[in-house]
């Protein structure tokens, strides 16, 4: 029998029992949609958690801790597969102040490798990179952090007592490029600045960080500045100097998020203490994998319940068509063909049920992602809740594939026994049946 004729045959039978088949398809649809929607909540919450975690970090960054990190180690790390850049940051462990005229800031000097920084997105908004020891680049928030402290104090004093009004802090508004400011180190313990001053010239302003909420008020300098500042530190510090002025921190950047894990484990193997987002993500992924598996399992029970409907429908179909099956066998239909026709019918119920379930699930997911934040926000009195980008339900293609496979397998298995029963129908008994 040609495949087209087999389809025709099934269509005719389905047409004859529209209501019964419809109810069975409905049960299969509800079971599968329940599985998809239930598991989609797991996927949704997982996605939300991941995006909340990733939103606040540089996701490809791996922090490396060790007692002696230097240029040599950094060079070695550059040789690891999938490492895009290795940036060594050296910060001063002392009080610092930068003064530009009447404006001052407790500047944060950072010695870095501009070449490596450029590879991971460091760029200038204006100016150029330092070319000599006393040239620096400042963050885009540097000007704002330069405050006229005496004017600020006067403003604060002028305010009536108990006023909650915050005065506008007078910060530096002028041009930065080409300006020379005074940089001083100091003692955290006494809170006093050392006498020796270093004049640094701003030659560039860094681009605004990609995250809106980040304020970059750093002073980026070249490594050549370190010996100069260490000299001052040793001279001016009254107590005996034991700790070095600068401490290093290495940041290794993987090329893509997927490779953070492999780079992290390679660094661990080399004996470094590392921290990366992949560590945290791994734990969350394991938890949510278990949760999603649990939800799929619960959903599968719903599909199994709906399979009882398919089993009943197919058993009734076989019983009702016993005489017809007998006639077909008598005129030469192969038992395998009879079995295939019934299996195809139960598979058809499974396919239609699954397709409808997928459509319905996407609709439910869409509506719940739109409606639930509004409802939850209203319920807990947080009007901004809807803007937090909380996703309640996500249906990835993998979930659709898993649910479809479960649904179709269950539909075919449910139809298997009735189909086998059909092949075993005795021709003589079937022909004796009354119409």
């Amino acid at each position, binding site marked *: *029998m*040609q495949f*087209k*004729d087999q389809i025709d*045959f099934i269509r*005719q*039978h389905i047409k*004859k029992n529209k209501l019964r088949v419809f109810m069975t398809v409905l049960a299969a649809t509800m079971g599968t949609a329940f599985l998809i929607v239930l598991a989609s909540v797991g996927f949704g919450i997982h996605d939300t958690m991941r995006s909340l975690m990733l939103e606040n970090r540089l996701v490809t960054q791996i922090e490396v801790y060790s007692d002696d990190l230097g240029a040599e180690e950094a060079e070695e790390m550059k040789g690891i597969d999938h490492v895009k850049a290795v940036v060594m940051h050296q910060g001063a462990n002392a009080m610092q102040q930068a003064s530009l005229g009447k404006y001052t800031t407790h500047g944060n000097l950072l010695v870095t490798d501009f070449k490596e920084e450029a590879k991971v997105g460091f760029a200038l908004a204006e100016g150029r990179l330092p070319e000599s020891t006393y040239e620096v680049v400042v963050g885009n928030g540097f000007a704002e952090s330069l405050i006229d402290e005496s004017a600020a104090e006067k403003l604060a004093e002028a305010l009536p007592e108990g006023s909650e009004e915050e005065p506008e802090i007078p910060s530096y508004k002028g041009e930065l490029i080409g300006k020379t400011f005074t940089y001083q180190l100091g003692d955290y313990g006494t809170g006093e600045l050392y006498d020796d001053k270093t004049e640094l010239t701003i030659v560039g302003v860094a681009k605004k960080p990609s995250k809106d909420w980040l304020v970059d008020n750093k002073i980026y300098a070249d490594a050549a500045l370190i010996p100069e500042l260490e000299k001052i530190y040793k001279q001016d510090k009254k107590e005996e100097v034991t700790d070095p002025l600068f401490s290093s921190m290495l940041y290794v950047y993987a090329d893509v998020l997927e490779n953070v894990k492999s780079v992290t484990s390679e660094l661990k193997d080399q004996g470094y203490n590392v921290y990366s987002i992949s560590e945290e993500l791994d734990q969350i992924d394991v938890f949510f994998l278990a949760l999603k598996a649990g939800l799929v399992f619960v959903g599968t029970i719903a599909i199994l319940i709906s399979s009882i409907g398919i089993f009943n429908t197919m058993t009734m179909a076989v019983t009702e068509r016993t*005489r*017809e099956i*007998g*006639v*077909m*066998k*008598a*005129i*030469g*239909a*192969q*038992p*395998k*063909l009879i079995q295939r026709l019934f299996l195809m019918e139960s598979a058809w119920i499974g396919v239609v049920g699954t397709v409808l379930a997928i459509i319905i699930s996407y609709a439910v997911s869409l509506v719940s992602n739109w409606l639930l934040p509004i409802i939850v926000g209203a319920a807990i009195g947080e009007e901004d809740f809807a803007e937090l980008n909380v996703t309640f339900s996500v249906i990835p293609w993998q979930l659709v594939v898993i649910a479809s496979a479960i649904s179709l397998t269950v539909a075919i298995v449910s139809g298997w026994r009735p189909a086998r029963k059909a092949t075993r129908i005795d*021709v*003589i008994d079937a*022909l004796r049946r009354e*119409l």
Partner: protein
Amino acid sequence: MLITVQDINHSFLIGRKGKESNVPVLKNISFSVKQGEIVSIVGRSGSGKSTLLHILAGFLKPDSGEIVVKDTVTSVFNEQQSAQFRLENYGFIFQNFQLMPGLTAFENVELPLKLKGMNRHQRKDKVQQLMKHVGLQSVQDHYPNELSGGQQQRVSIARALITDPPIIFADEPTGSLDSETEQEVLELIQTLNDTRDITFVIITHDDEVAQRADRMYRMHDGILTEEGVPNAV
């Protein structure tokens, strides 16, 4: 010989489980049918004639003995081989027509061709031609419950003929028909036998029907004996 039946024995187990008794229904049946013959097997109800037909058609396996059709031993076939052989070599006419109630007359006749895997266009031409030949053209889109007994039996005959089988088994072909329609059906069988050289094996309880065959066998208590045919058509 087209069909040769040699020493067929068959019995049924009757009674409750554990207390069954063996009732022989066919005893040493041997006969043969030539190409183009109409052979009738007549007997009372319960004589074993239908069981013999079921064994010939491959619905049942004999306890012993051999059936050779077109030089092929069919009594050793499994279910699949039996079904395939039926599809290619046999046509069936049943007493209560055994038409598919959900299919039109045309679709009922078309069914064996579908099972053979013939394409739609070829099927359409062939079925229309045959329905015209047996006088069913005007009712081809009717469902079985919209047809008279005679028309239903004609549809059943057309279904048996559609694959051009060399042999047609007819089980009480006129059992559900009035005498006028009975004559029409018997004449149609005779015509088909004459024009298409089809071999008919007719099972009947009616001596009158049986005597219209070329040769007639009588079945009595599982034993088959050949009788003369005085009124052969």
